[in-house]
């Protein structure tokens, strides 16, 4: 095994081009476990800890450019206002020790359906900026996950930034597990209200071969909210609408039975989380809508 220690982003890209089989390592949450248990013996380890760009973030007008290695702890503490869904999801990642080192780039690189960041990224809307010596490109989050632990990266590409739309409305995240800390999601659900476009987006984790959006549920809810004038009148969501939304979210799952839970439990739990997160987010939207009306 060789340990490659690039000191800059350019050196990292050059190393990855020269050794496409090199396994990038940053927080080590997934990679070190595989090595410790002898499940994987990569020819090259590509250490990204020295690449400063990956630890930086920038809040722009419409989106946040998040370095792939910005630790979850930082997201929780510094980006809660801009990325509330991702901040909530970050807080459910493992333990303080792991959150101090792990970042979204690792979740995306591993592309496990159980990665905690995925539902939040899908719901908020995001693009993954990847680069190689050949150039850089931005992959929409919907197109990034291509299979179980597979993603759209080419062998010579590395993940540099994630561009995440800044929240324009309330966002929620929910995760099922046996305790609060150190839990791989049995299933998870992210939801974001986007009042500026009058749309709702979702993300489902650990209930299909890849993280997915519940698109039929989103379309149904968008139409129902529009039709009922909910975005303007700020009424509570009709229980039948919430129920239908929950059922469609369950329907978007394609889960398996495994040690953490059964497929039917996952389908059920995703429906429950969909209804709850919608209710929480909508209550908080109504709260803000009422306040801004009062101020006017």
């Amino acid at each position, binding site marked *: *095994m*060789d*340990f490659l*220690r690039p000191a800059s982003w350019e050196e990292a890209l050059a190393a990855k081009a020269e050794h496409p089989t090199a396994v990038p*390592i940053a*927080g*080590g*949450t997934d*990679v*070190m*476990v595989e*090595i*410790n*248990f002898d499940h994987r*013996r990569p020819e090259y*380890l590509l*250490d990204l*800890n020295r690449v400063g760009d990956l630890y930086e973030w920038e809040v722009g007008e419409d989106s946040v450019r998040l370095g792939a290695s910005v630790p979850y702890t930082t997201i929780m503490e510094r980006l809660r206002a801009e990325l509330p869904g991702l901040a909530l999801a970050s807080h459910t990642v*493992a*333990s*303080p*020790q*792991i959150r*101090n*080192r792990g970042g979204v780039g690792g979740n995306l690189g591993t592309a496990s359906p159980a990665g905690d960041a995925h539902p939040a990224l899908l719901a908020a809307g995001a693009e993954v900026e990847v680069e190689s010596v050949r150039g850089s490109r931005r992959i929409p989050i919907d197109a990034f996950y291509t299979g179980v632990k597979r993603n759209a990266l080419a062998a010579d590409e590395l993940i540099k930034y994630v561009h995440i739309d800044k929240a324009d409305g309330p966002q929620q995240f929910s995760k099922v597990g046996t305790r*609060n*800390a*150190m839990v791989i999601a049995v299933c998870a659900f992210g939801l974001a209200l986007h009042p500026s476009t009058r749309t709702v987006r979702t993300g489902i984790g650990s209930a299909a071969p890849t993280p997915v959006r519940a698109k039929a549920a989103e379309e149904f809810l968008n139409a129902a909210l529009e039709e009922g004038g909910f975005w303007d009148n700020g009424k509570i969501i009709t229980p039948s609408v919430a129920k239908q939304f929950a059922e469609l979210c369950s329907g978007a799952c394609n889960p398996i039975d495994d040690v953490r839970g059964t497929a039917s439990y996952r389908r059920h739990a995703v429906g429950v989380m969909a209804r709850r997160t919608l209710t929480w987010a909508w209550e908080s939207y109504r709260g803000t809508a009422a306040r801004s009306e009062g101020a006017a």
Partner: protein
Amino acid sequence: MRVNFTVNGRPQEADDVWEGESLLYVLRERLGLPGSKNACEQGECGSCTVRLDGVPVCSCLVAAGQVEGRDVVTVEGLAEHARQRSCGDAHGTALDEARGRQAQGTDSQTGEGTELAPIQQAFIDAGAVQCGFCTPGLLVAADEMLERNPDPTDADIREALSGNLCRCTGYEKIMDAVRLAAARQQEAV
């Protein structure tokens, strides 16, 4: 490969390090510092918690090569680390001294005669140590929390220690110990 880094305030050099080796292995097997415990090797239990550039991490999930040029504090250096924090000077803990660190002193039951960090003394006084295997990780994590948050609520303590598993105590005595250390720290100010 060779790895140069700072351990408990002193520069150290580890030789013949395998590229896939963890920081935990380097500390225990190459530098002779077995205080950080090897239990799950997957970041699940927190027994191997050390400070890396001040931040608590699972040393089993840090590749040895990643610590090149960086700063590590282990449980063996905790007493000195805490002493420096309260007096502000720094001389570090030598490897020989750290290797010889055992909570024996004149009385291993009370910690008397041994220089301990306040959190270590509090664990002894509160009876928070049973088999002792999780203790080093808990000490490092709890000490870091008290550094950041001198007046923690019970929820803060639970959150800070949520990455450390203990199978003996049921955590109540550990909670007592951290509350005790926090109270003593505040009295001292």
